[in-house]
């Protein structure tokens, strides 16, 4: 039972209006080949969950943004891509700004079946607007909901054919949390290995979270 498919085949699972989580912090850990593949798919009105929205010059998700395929972005830092800023200022992109740790934890909650959680992060700030607030042990917390993307596009260092994953250095970042949160998880692996090649103690994302594996090469 191998989960290895072509990039084209994997991306047929993305539909108009889907919410897509895309791994990476900047371009490190971003599944660039899947994103490039997505730019060739006729999909629209996507909501993207990603820490950033590509980098200047149309790199990464910037390419999809330029194609007007993204209607909403959920993430923590869009200022690093001036194009994203421009689209937002022109009203062409709805933005839901989420503190980076809250973004990671909302994804983690989505993957782990948590219905919501309380965090001190952002309590008393503009980003708490409209959110339930609660005093716990004398400190103010706000309620945050889980994020469950329709599809996650993930970058891994190695995948085995079952879909067990390991990552490389700080390219790990949001990838494990997104892989666990999404209904369908598509992995771009730099290398695909046979089952048994990964040490059971070192697997970061076990295969039950993964639906498709594509060969991304280096």
């Amino acid at each position: 039972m191998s989960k290895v498919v072509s990039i084209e085949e994997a991306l047929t699972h993305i539909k108009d209006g889907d919410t897509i989580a895309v791994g990476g912090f900047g371009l490190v850990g971003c599944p660039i080949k899947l994103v490039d593949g997505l730019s060739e798919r006729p999909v629209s009105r996507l909501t993207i969950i990603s820490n950033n929205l590509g980098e200047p010059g149309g790199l990464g998700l910037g390419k999809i943004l330029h194609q007007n395929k993204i209607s909403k972005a959920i993430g923590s830092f869009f200022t690093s891509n001036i194009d994203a800023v421009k689209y937002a200022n022109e009203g062409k992109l709805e933005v839901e700004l989420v503190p980076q740790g809250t973004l990671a934890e909302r994804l983690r909650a989505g993957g782990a079946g948590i219905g919501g959680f309380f965090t001190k992060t952002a309590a008393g700030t503009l980003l708490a607007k409209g959110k339930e607030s609660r005093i716990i042990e004398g400190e103010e917390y706000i309620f945050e909901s889980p994020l469950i993307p329709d599809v996650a596009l993930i970058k891994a260092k190695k995948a085995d054919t079952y879909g067990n994953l390991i990552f490389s250095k700080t390219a790990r970042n949001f990838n494990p949390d997104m892989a666990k949160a999404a209904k369908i998880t598509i992995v771009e692996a730099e290398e695909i290995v046979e089952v048994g090649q990964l040490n059971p103690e070192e697997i970061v994302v076990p295969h039950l979270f993964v639906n498709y594996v594509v060969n991304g090469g280096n």
Partner: protein
Amino acid sequence: MGLKEKIAMRAAQEINDGDIVNLGIGIPTLVADYIPKNKSVFLHTENGLLGVGPTPLPEEIDPEIINAGKLPVTALIGASYFSSSESFGMIRGGHIDVAILGALQVAENGDIANWAIPGENILGVGGAMDLVAGAKKVIVTTQHCTKNGEPKILPSCNYPITAKGVVKLLITEYAVFKFENNQMILEEILDDTMTLQQIKAITPANYTISQSLKMLQK
């Protein structure tokens, strides 16, 4: 030594042996250079690395080892990599001893504003809110006034705040202020050309003067 280096050097004195430290972008990044070599200090970067080492030589750059400013760094012996939810679990859970970061404004009640400017579309927050809400000790390093000479240390922030009442220490090129028992206290003067009156003139915040006020030795 420039003003920024001076502030960074003073901040480095606040770090204790064995501390886990998260350094923000700008002046905080410089702090690493002034940590005494006889102290074991572990730098954490929220994108997923504990044990950040110095900036690599150009030929030694590993593109998959970056810090929260997306700049290449190295990993020291004993380092570890982890996912975003793990990394922010460390931050939110109080496992970071010291977070040093910059600010646009600091208020006398310890409020900090360092992420948004009124009137501009708010499109980036990153990990700032998580860090100031979660770290055991929040130290702000900043120039005393803005580039235009406007005060940054105020009775209350008029920029959107990052968190309420979290600043424990504020270090500028002129002075060090402590925040304790709902009081802001001038603890040290770092510039021997500045009188108490001159500092007061550029510091609209209400503060008391420590009975053990330290002045820089000439």
